């Protein structure tokens, strides 16, 4: 049951044709893990918190840098040098004090990934490098947990929702583990609002996933900020994928 406070707080959601008390309760009971609290994670987590995602788990090992403030909108000038996960949790609990927020100051790696994603109803990959992205993809596929992956650089964004139970491809089918890493965000540069566009799209997709309204699994959405256009590409599973195909050597 929703409380009177929740009826008022989520009133604009509850008015929607495709959303009601049942969906709001589903959100309230959901555990959403956001890995990476940079630009994407700051944007995504704000809308998830505001929408009433019941338990938010925030994972990042980094501290706030002056050059982050151009796009990582949960942090303030006074927080330079402070832990991102902890400060993001603090800001989000001010936004919505009726949800549970857990901050984990650690870096996702192949040893802790399974434990980090375990019990999540959906995972958001908001990290800034391919290695973390493969680790998270593999852990979600092993645990059968839906994954909403987002990325942003320069004027370009990419967004994809993956459901291990479905037949489409996974992140490693799109970018096999020999794909070359490009320079980190700070060097490539990124338009501040772009991480907002992609991060809030991840929150949007996550809410659709949680409330059973998601319909574009395995579709790579690319955003071209120079043209202000989105494109869609379907990603089939690769028979040779070491992450999502049974019987393929998993040691890669």
């Amino acid at each position: 049951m929703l409380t009177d406070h929740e009826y008022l707080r989520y009133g604009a959601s509850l008015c929607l044709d495709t959303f009601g008390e049942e969906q709001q309760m589903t959100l309230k009971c959901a555990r959403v893990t956001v890995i990476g609290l940079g630009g994407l994670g700051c944007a995504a987590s704000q809308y998830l918190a505001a929408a009433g995602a019941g338990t938010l788990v925030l994972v990042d090992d980094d501290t706030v840098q002056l050059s982050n403030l151009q796009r990582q909108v949960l942090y303030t000038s006074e927080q330079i040098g402070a832990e991102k996960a902890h400060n993001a949790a603090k800001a989000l609990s001010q936004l919505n004090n009726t949800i549970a927020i857990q901050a984990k100051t650690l870096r996702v790696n192949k040893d802790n990934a399974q434990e980090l994603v375990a019990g999540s109803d959906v995972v958001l990959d908001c990290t800034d490098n391919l290695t973390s992205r493969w680790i998270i993809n593999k852990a979600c596929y092993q645990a059968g947990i839906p994954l909403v992956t987002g990325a942003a650089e320069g004027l370009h964004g990419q967004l994809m929702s993956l459901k291990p139970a479905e037949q489409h491809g996974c992140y490693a089918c799109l970018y096999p583990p020999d794909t070359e890493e490009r320079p980190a965000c700070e060097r490539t540069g990124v338009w501040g609002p772009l991480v907002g566009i992609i991060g809030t799209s991840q929150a949007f997709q996550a809410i659709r996933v949680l409330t059973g309204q998601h319909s574009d699994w395995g579709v790579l959405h690319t955003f071209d900020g120079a043209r202000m256009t989105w494109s869609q590409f379907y990603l089939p599973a690769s028979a040779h994928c070491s992450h999502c195909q049974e019987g393929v050597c998993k040691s890669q």
Partner: protein
Amino acid sequence: MQISVNNQSIQIDEEATVAALVKAQKSQTRAIAVAVNQQIVHRENWSEHRLHGGDVVDIVTVVAGG
């Protein structure tokens, strides 16, 4: 034959493969994904996948920042 690559019309040999196109475009082969008619073609299939006149090809550069 004529195909479209990233919204630009180009001429390419009849029956050219995705691999030949990628080479002709001088794309960094290990930092891209390729879609033909809005479906991703896996890297291991680039040398077998033949293109046809009118195909719409998108070469998508990897984006990993956050």
